[in-house]
């Protein structure tokens, strides 16, 4: 049952909290802590464990009770790889996803309630949680974070300052607060449990307020003395938002993570290291303070070659990121015995290896009409020999697939996933001719209604996924055979994004995000956000970020948008699932984007002596693996 990405009931959280409280109460006698901390307590450097843990610490269940010690070694690709840190250490929001990505469970908040129309949420924080510097984590810190995110001088943006529906905070007492919204926000809990939830818990008022002129009248002068041109830049340097790279360059910034910075992430760091947070507020089933592992060691490598060799040599304890490429799989498989590791299963959240997004809002009326013609898109889809691409590029891994929820998802619909995927050039030609492409020029390319050849320039960033070029080159030949000319335009990422507001593209290519997080990432199912490149102007009409280029969408898309608005305002999970299915039904009917094949599973490298680590996990950004699998209970045997 993976239906869940949408339907967490508020009372589930309460029940979970009650259970956790029970579990915590029972074994409280034998609480233990890491030997290194025990020594510090004895020497008086640290208060005793009871004073450091909250009243009601979060109990993390695991297969086995572990032992303290060890260093978890992993690798970063280049200096700007904050993603690894976020996904490993920094996922500590008010709530979190359970390891199966099925429901939202308590984290820093021990319980919460929502009103019926999803405009008011009441949260209760765990009593006695402390920042890594030993000061209490309270609603003051939540209020400060809201204030900062909504301050235009603090350059960060998230759901907190979403200008269509910003958070209105009401502090009740030290541990209780309310989020209120003018418009219903039925998806708030999913947002809070995702990686975006860490924004609200990332800024300690006591430390960060000293850089803001509201709290410190000398802030501007101090910023200048520190070599910054404005207090805002100094504040952003010392107290960067949520997962900004520079945040991990400041070891003085208090946090609530399981590990705190030992060697910071600077431009010249050869490695980033972390040591255990003595004030961490989670315990195992026997009441022992977590985490088990003493230190994290992140090697900063300029490229993946060194990391690959390190993994083969058994110098990486757990990692999927960067090194788990398709090409290297046989190499890692063969090296298991020598390297003392084994491979775990990683299920990607993306549905598709390549999404061909024709620009339905093209400025050229001829192309716009053609691309909006469903027969044209169906014709292209039938002209692609997907099995050949799967065999050649992915060594047979994956299967022909459209852009649709993955088979693991409760929204999986075989028809949506498989329609128009059979390779049939004659059928393709039939559809293309139905779309009005009956004439051909001397080169065998079909002519559009204005007499120009039907040439589609496809923007692609090969640096992001090298296999895209291989796939597109095969598709180029296959589509050429039915009279459609594909031109590859391999460009840099910046230009790729710059072209969108200007509407200067025929088609762009990306991977199929939203295969599991169907409701939260619906970019291909209807024109939902800036990543809906296939209908960028329609998406602007929907989300209102760039009203100057917005355009009224087709009726079917408007119908989907209306349904999605209802999802947002519904607090009933079943109703939300039902509405999403209606959206997907329209997607199936309209067939807006063309997919190639199901994204094959990836793999993780797991050292054999690392226990409690997941043999199988989902991988996504919103579900920032491996953090939801609770690395704090992993240990070395």
């Amino acid at each position, binding site marked *: 049952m993976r239906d869940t990405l949408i339907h967490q009931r508020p009372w589930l959280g309460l029940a979970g909290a009650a259970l956790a409280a029970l579990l915590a109460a029972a074994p409280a006698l034998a609480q233990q802590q890491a030997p290194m901390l025990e020594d510090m307590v004895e020497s008086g450097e640290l208060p005793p464990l009871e004073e450091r843990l909250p009243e009601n610490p979060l109990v993390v269940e695991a297969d086995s009770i572990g032992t303290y010690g060890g260093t978890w070694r992993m690798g970063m690709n280049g200096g700007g790889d904050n993603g690894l840190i976020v996904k490993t250490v920094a996922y500590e929001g008010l709530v979190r996803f359970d390891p199966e990505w099925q429901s939202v469970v308590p984290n820093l908040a021990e319980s919460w309630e929502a009103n019926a129309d999803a405009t008011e949420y009441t949260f209760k924080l765990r009593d006695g949680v402390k920042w890594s510097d030993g000061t209490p984590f309270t609603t003051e810190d939540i209020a400060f974070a809201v204030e900062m995110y909504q301050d*235009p001088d603090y350059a960060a943006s998230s759901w907190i300052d979403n200008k269509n529906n910003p958070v209105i905070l009401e502090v009740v007492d030290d541990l209780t607060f309310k989020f209120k919204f003018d418009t219903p926000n039925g998806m708030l809990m999913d947002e809070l449990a995702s990686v975006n939830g860490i924004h609200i818990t990332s800024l300690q008022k006591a430390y960060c307020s000293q850089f803001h002129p509201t709290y410190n009248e000398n802030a501007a002068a101090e910023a200048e003395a520190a070599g910054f041109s404005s207090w805002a830049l100094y504040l952003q340097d010392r107290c960067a938002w949520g997962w900004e790279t520079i945040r991990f360059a400041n070891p003085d910034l208090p946090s609530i993570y399981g590990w705190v910075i030992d060697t910071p992430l600077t431009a010249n760091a050869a490695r980033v290291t972390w040591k255990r947070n003595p004030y961490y507020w989670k315990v195992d089933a026997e009441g022992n303070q977590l985490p088990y592992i003493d230190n994290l060691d992140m090697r900063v490598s*300029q490229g993946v070659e*060194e990391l690959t060799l390190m993994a083969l040599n058994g110098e990486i304890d757990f990692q999927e990121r960067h090194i788990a490429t398709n090409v290297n799989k046989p190499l890692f498989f063969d090296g298991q015995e020598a390297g003392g590791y084994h491979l775990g299963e990683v299920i990607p959240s993306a549905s598709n290896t390549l999404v061909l997004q024709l620009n339905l809002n093209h400025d050229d009326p001829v192309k716009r009409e053609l691309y909006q013609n469903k027969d044209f898109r169906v014709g292209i889809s039938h002209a692609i020999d997907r099995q050949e691409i799967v065999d050649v590029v992915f060594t047979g891994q994956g299967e022909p697939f459209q852009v649709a929820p993955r088979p693991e998802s409760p929204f999986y619909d075989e028809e949506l996933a498989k329609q128009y995927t059979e390779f049939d050039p004659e059928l393709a030609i039939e559809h293309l001719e139905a779309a009005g492409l009956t004439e051909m020029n001397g080169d065998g390319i079909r002519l559009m209604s204005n007499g120009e050849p039907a040439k589609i320039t496809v923007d692609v960033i090969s640096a992001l996924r090298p296999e895209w070029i291989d796939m597109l080159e095969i598709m180029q030949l296959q589509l050429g055979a039915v009279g459609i000319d594909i031109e590859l335009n391999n460009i840099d990422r*910046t230009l790729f994004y710059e072209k969108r507001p200007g509407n200067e593209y025929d088609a762009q290519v990306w991977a199929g995000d939203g295969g599991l997080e169907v409701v939260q990432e619906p970019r291909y199912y209807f024109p939902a956000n800036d990543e809906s490149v296939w209908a960028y102007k329609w998406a602007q009409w929907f*989300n209102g970020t*760039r009203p100057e280029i917005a355009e009224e969408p087709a009726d079917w898309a408007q119908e989907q948008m209306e349904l999605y608005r209802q999802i947002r305002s519904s607090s009933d999970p079943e109703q939300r699932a039902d509405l999403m299915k209606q959206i997907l039904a329209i997607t199936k009917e309209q067939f807006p984007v063309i997919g190639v094949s199901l994204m094959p599973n990836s793999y993780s490298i797991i050292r054999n002596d690392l226990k409690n680590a997941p043999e199988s996990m989902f991988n996504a950004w919103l579900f920032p693996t491996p953090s939801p699998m609770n690395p704090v209970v992993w240990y070395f045997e």
Partner: protein
Amino acid sequence: MVGFIIRRSIAMLLTLVAVSIVAFAIIQLPPGDYLTSYIAALSSTGDQVDPRVIENLRVQYGLGEPFYVQYWKWVTGILQGNFGHSFEWKRPVSELIWGRLGNSIMLEGLAVMVMWLIALPIGIYAAVRKYSLGDYLATVLGFIGLAVPNFFFALIVMYLAFVWFGETIGGLYSPEFETARWSLPRVWDFLSNAWIPVLVLATAGTAELIRILRANLLDELKKPYVTTARAKGLTEFRTIMKYPVRLALNPLISTIGWLLPALVSGSVIVSVVMNLPTAGPMLLRSLTTQDMYLAGAIILLLSVLTVVGTLISDILLAWMDPRIRYGSK
């Protein structure tokens, strides 16, 4: 000689001014700026950035200003020793680059020395014993060295070290010395880690040097003064070393200035592959993220090194070869 050096130095300064303008312009040529690449990076993780936030940042970073204003600020800052701020790392550029440039100069300096140490004797031998077995060997190895890209050679060495010795090659220091101060053990640790990258970096250059030296020397050896020297009864060693070799070295000395930039740009991929903390990968990253003051500073400093190198080679040439005249009168 003094006048010659002064004239050269003035020309050098003017060149640097021109280089700084061109460098600054080139960095700004790609569409967008640091913030657009920042937005692109955020968007790909599904983050929507409020345009107002970006506008604010643009003002804070001074990115909206016209080219000449930005350039003037940058240049006047440099004259006061301030290279500007790195957008990505929010740190003064001068704090970031010296360590990396130091590593680059150290590694590449060693590579140049190794290059000369290997190439000179082999080149001379190959010319003097033309078409001998040794010459053929040197020629074959030389062509292989020229043909194999450095980074590929680096990959092979890394793979072999892993397969044969179970060693992971990467970086310049062992973990315990990464952040330590310089000391005798750290120098030893550096050398024991650095010899592989140094050899890799030196291969292509060595091969090239052998070929050039051999060709130059072969030209010289045929000349009558060599025969005369022999007829006068000089020993063979002295005959060859004193005159023809000295002349054959001329083209090598005049290219000293180009060695550094060639090595820095040639070593980017090697540095990425072998994870060397040199200026190359930092330059590459700052260019892709459009972190313009950082990229600008690295390019400018490399240009300074090139220009200084050229000056040194000019002076050396003038000193080595009395036939060279100062100035063009």
